[in-house]
């Protein structure tokens, strides 16, 4: 199992993701600087959170034009599991790998708080060990986290089972309370909350198991693919 954690200038959850993959789930993960070519043997790619390029212009938009993104696009097409968390999700959206757009939260401020997700699609590489409608306690930490799409796209997302996670409460004004989506083929998943901040009991005393299942799903997926 080889997982690539992509690091952009300004990524700041890369080390957290690296720690969780390697130390908690014993998934072999390496960092890949955004100017590097990705090796062919990667089993999955994760775009971590942070403020790539200081959120200049628009969150994720400059990183979406990084050299590494063309490799990411190729691998997405080849069906390799790809996960974008927070800024990683914003980058995937800006790169056109996922539908929708992320706007400023309704509060107009950065929000750091714990919330709950509801699993809406448990057939993706990152959710296949979760139960449908299972709840996940998890923190959000973003300013541009309000997922927005028009009604027409919303119906097609519903039809194609592309809505992966929804918030159990109204958190930031996201369309249909959407917190995470996937592409049509369901190998590319993006979500605003931070699963890497919720998988250890020391950090998440309420219940760390549901978040852990996101990473255990990945193990099941790429372990099985090998």
């Amino acid at each position, binding site marked *: 199992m080889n997982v690539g954690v992509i690091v952009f*200038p300004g990524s*700041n959850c890369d080390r957290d993701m690296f720690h969780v993959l390697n130390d908690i789930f014993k998934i072999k993960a390496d960092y890949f600087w955004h100017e590097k070519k990705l090796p062919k043997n990667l089993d999955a790619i994760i775009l971590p959170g942070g403020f790539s390029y200081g959120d200049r212009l628009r969150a994720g938009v400059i990183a979406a034009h990084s050299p590494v993104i063309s490799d990411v696009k190729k691998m997405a097409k080849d069906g390799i599991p790809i996960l974008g968390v927070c800024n990683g999700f914003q980058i995937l959206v800006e790169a056109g790998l996922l539908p929708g757009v992320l706007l400023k939260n309704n509060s107009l401020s*950065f929000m750091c708080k714990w919330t709950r997700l509801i699993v809406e699609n448990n057939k993706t590489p990152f959710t296949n060990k979760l139960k449908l409608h299972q709840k996940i306690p998890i923190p959000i930490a973003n300013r541009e986290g309000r997922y927005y799409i028009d009604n027409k796209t919303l119906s097609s997302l519903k039809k194609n089972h592309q809505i992966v996670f929804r918030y159990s409460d109204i958190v930031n004004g996201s369309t249909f309370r959407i917190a995470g989506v996937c592409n049509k083929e369901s190998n590319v998943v993006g979500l605003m909350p931070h699963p890497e901040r919720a998988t250890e009991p020391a950090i998440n005393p309420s219940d760390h198991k549901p978040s852990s299942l996101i990473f255990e799903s990945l193990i099941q997926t790429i372990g099985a693919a090998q």
Partner: protein
Amino acid sequence: MSLAKQESIFLEKKIGRKPTNTEFQIVAAEWSEHCSYKSSKKHLKMLPMTGHNIISEKGLDSGVIDVGDNYVVTVHIESHNHPSAVEPYGGAATGVGGVIRDILSAGTRPIAILDGLRFGNIEKDPFAIWLFKNAVSGIADYGNCIGIPTIGGEIEFDECYTNYALVDVAAIGFGKKDRLIKNNAKKGDLVVLIGGPTGRDGIGGSQFASDSLESEDRSAVQIPDPFIEKLIIEAILEARNQKCIKAMKDLGGGGLSCAISETADSLSIGIELDVNQIHTRESDMNPDEIMISESQERMLIITDKNKLKKLQEICKKFSIICSVIGKVKDDKLMRVKKNNQTLASIPTNIVANAPLLDRPSSEPNYLKKLPKRIQLKEVSNLSNVLLKMLGNPNIASKIWAYSQYDHEVGIRTVIKPGLDASVLRLDNGKFLSVKIDGNPKHCYVNPRQGAIGCFEEAIRNVVCTGATPIGMVDHLQFGNPENPEIFWTFLESLKGLTDFAKFFKIPCVGGKVSFYNETPKGPIKPTPVIGVLGIIDKEPSHPQKIDRGNILIIVGNTNDELGGSEYIEYIHGIIGGTCPQVDFKTSKKNMTAVLESIKKGYVKCAHDCSKGGIVIAISELCMMNNIGCNISLEKISAKHLESDRILFSETHSRYLLVIDKKDLKKIKKVFTENNVSYGMIGNFGGNQILFKKGSKSIINLRIDKALSKWEKSLEELVIHG
């Protein structure tokens, strides 16, 4: 840009000639109060600064504490008051940036930020709201972007800060002991400036900060760029790993003048630099401007010639500009050149060591006028008073602010902001507990006792998480030190802190003095802010959910100490009275007993009593657990006081402990052995905050009503104010 007349004479005598214009500018920046500590340096020596776990190296900008297993924790505290009062967003943001780079200069990774914010009365003053809102945004935007969690702090409002702002920032670093930068340099090493370009922002900032705030000199305020800061952090840590850094210093107050002279002086070297090599934001900057610009996100590095290429590669990877601006000499001179023209050539020990002052001090007149004994009007409905107090911006929940700070990034924050101290996990299995506390209302009434109280409060907060205090940082903020009355309050606070630190054997590992905190309306109240770090060897005490039937114990006596309290000022409009005094022996006894009870696992939840007194502390426990309580006033150990005095007195050394019935016997044993005074004052259950005197109910407030007031007051003031 100026020197006092006698300073100019002193300078000329020392160098034996008239200084050049550039030399004059450099010395004026470095001899400002902000950089030189000329008023306070002589006195600061009284603080205990050593300990078995304290590592001191020359030229370090932060305190270093050995936490075992080849790991160190670094800590530093600074303020950015003048800039924040003029431009709160940029002032607060660059305040964060500056202190982060001090942590970085030791070669440690910054892992947490705490901030103490103080403004005028936001219930009356829209300008105070504007300052508050923008300072919070500045901290959020900067800290969140660089990915360092803001894990705690404090927010306070007081009329004395009208048209002004105190923005204190403390930062914590963590790293391997053997990777600390042990500043050293030899002839032939290269002097490198990395980071953002030098511009005209922040020109003369340190002198701006060393005068009373009368004009809004916006050009003296620095412009924040957190993205560059983040790149600098990563580049420097990589350069550290590749051993490219022999010595390092952050560019803060006084800009290059300060960084060069202080580095050269502490390492006993000379530095020659060429201003033409410095990358600037504007092409037409003159050398003097370049030398005193306080543009942010810059670091000075001394590297070995052979390591330069590696350092340049690292900077290139992170797209940061890296300029070789000079070289190390052995003549102990600071030499500034432009091409072949020498603009300054002056001994570094003269630049870096301003003539120190012996300021006169005298007890302030205002203290004599303050009423010592206070008469309070009888209040008819204590439930209403409690509700009003919960909405007092100094008491109300600060969630509006800290929910805008990413306090989770780095996944170390084991105990999150909102209750007592915050706790970070360290890589060696230990935990670090941190809190900063200030109390200008107490310090105004009694600068010495008030300062000790802030120190003890920070200790109490850290102890409530199960941590043993291992170090403190102090930030001493006062008005104009040239006024003997203000200088007296500074000395009193310092003496108090020294006595307490010595008694508790807690070394001061860092600090800062900020004078000239004045507006046209006068000086601020004395505002020392004290940070305490504690270490937990095993598990921290996570606050557990309080259940029905759990017992509430108070450790410590309640005295008639309403002086400088929130209650007498907010409800009765009185300033004065006797402020709480810490009895050192009782303080230690209570701390020991509480720590022992927590470590033995008898305590479900511990909380300290501070602003607003026991009734506020108990209400907080109830609101956070959404459970009511039933408290008997006569069981609180207090000598025949009126009900409101018991409820709102801010006596120190008091802890609230929530325990399960089954542990009652065991915890009583701990208290008896330690000879502490305590009372079982009630239990939890229902949905009312209920206080009784005999069989008569004196407070009866529904939890949901209390919670909504406490949680929403601050946000409503900010949004609708």
